């Protein structure tokens, strides 16, 4: 049976934990709003880009001179997996679920006898994959210094992927990130960047006959690398929002649990205080009776 003093100390310590988790929750809520705003701001560009490319790609897909980024390098032996996670923990299952999806994917590729290379973005994912897949790491992008995700980051990552693809270091590039649906719902997603995939129905709406300058294929060759960067950027932004959302709900849970624990400890504290008083009273009364 812990003493009254012990109980009191424990209540105090749980209370300060609750303060911290509460504060983290509020910070995450504020950051989430900002992350959502930047995701919102990036949307028009990404949508326009996809619409135009969908249109172009539909026409060029069957032509023999289509850019390699569109039709692929003709093999699918070497896969590059870009695993985007957070720089920090304490956000529930966020990092773990992305890492798990990437690991499952990597393992199934390995089982098929393909070569797998992994580029990690964010150190949490790297730590989680290090145990089983460390041999496949080819690089790491550290975003811990950055206050927010900028297009330049995405551009650099895309650049690495495109260069490697051009040199034939890998044939297929897939990015893993978490798509943001709501504060309590984020979905780990795998998106293939190279060769580019377009929604079959994306080109239906905008079937205008454009004039092109330079010709269609030159434009396509110019736009595809940009579209890769845009997709990486969108993925990073979604990831940022998801991370804050996941952290917010994780911290909300923690705050609630701390509250419950405080209630329980307080009851225990009161009960033992009462027991102590009762036993003191009994001592006094039986002492008086003995006289």
């Amino acid at each position, binding site marked *: 049976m812990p003493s009254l003093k012990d109980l009191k100390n424990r209540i105090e310590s749980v209370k300060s934990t609750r303060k911290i988790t509460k504060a983290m929750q509020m910070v995450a809520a504020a950051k989430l709003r900002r992350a959502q705003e930047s995701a919102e701001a990036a949307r028009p560009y990404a949508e*326009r880009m996809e619409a135009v490319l969908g249109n172009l790609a539909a026409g060029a897909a069957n032509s023999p001179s289509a850019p390699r980024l569109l039709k692929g390098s003709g093999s699918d032996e070497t896969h590059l997996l870009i695993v985007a996670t957070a720089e920090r923990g304490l956000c529930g299952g966020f990092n773990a679920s992305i890492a798990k999806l990437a690991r499952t994917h990597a393992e199934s590729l390995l089982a098929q006898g393909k070569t797998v290379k992994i580029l990690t973005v964010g150190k949490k994912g790297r730590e989680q994959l290090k145990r089983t897949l460390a041999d496949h790491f080819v690089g790491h992008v550290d975003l811990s210094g950055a206050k927010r995700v900028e*297009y330049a980051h995405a551009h650099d990552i895309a650049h690495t992927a495109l260069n490697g693809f051009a040199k034939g270091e890998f044939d297929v590039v897939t990015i893993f990130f978490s798509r943001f649906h709501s504060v309590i719902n984020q979905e780990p997603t795998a998106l293939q960047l190279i060769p580019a995939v377009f929604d079959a129905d994306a080109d239906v709406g905008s079937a205008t006959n454009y004039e092109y*300058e330079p010709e269609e294929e030159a434009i396509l060759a110019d736009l595809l690398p940009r579209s890769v960067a845009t997709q990486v950027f969108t993925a990073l932004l979604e990831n940022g929002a998801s991370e804050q959302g996941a952290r917010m709900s994780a911290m909300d849970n923690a705050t609630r649990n701390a509250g419950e624990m405080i209630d329980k400890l307080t009851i225990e504290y009161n009960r033992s205080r009462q027991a102590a008083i009762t036993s003191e009273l009994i001592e006094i009364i039986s002492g008086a009776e003995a006289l």
Partner: protein
Amino acid sequence: MADKMQFDLVSPERKLASLEADQVQLPGAEGDMTAMPNHAPFLTTLRPGLVRVVAGSEVTEYVITGGFAEISPEGATILAEEALPKAEATKEKLEAFLEKAKADLEQASDEAREAAALRVNDHHELFIRHAV
């Protein structure tokens, strides 16, 4: 002519402008061009350069580092890689763009060399003519 066109300028990070304009001058890949209302549907890549938007008596200018433009009879949309209002295009910023273009040229593969060299050229012109 009373006709107006809808002009949008977006970069990956934000929407810079969205307004009704009379005409838009933009640095097309194969020469500067002006888009006016009821232009035929047109798609072009852009060089680094200056975009001039004329709306009534107001003229707004933006510096862009490349991208592409989609022009339709109803309006024009520029998807710029990076864009900033001309007033913010300081000497330092333009110089940074120029340096970056030069660095890209250093690393460019043989097939991309020509395009990268042209970009350096354009950035150089931008720097000399428009640095404030």
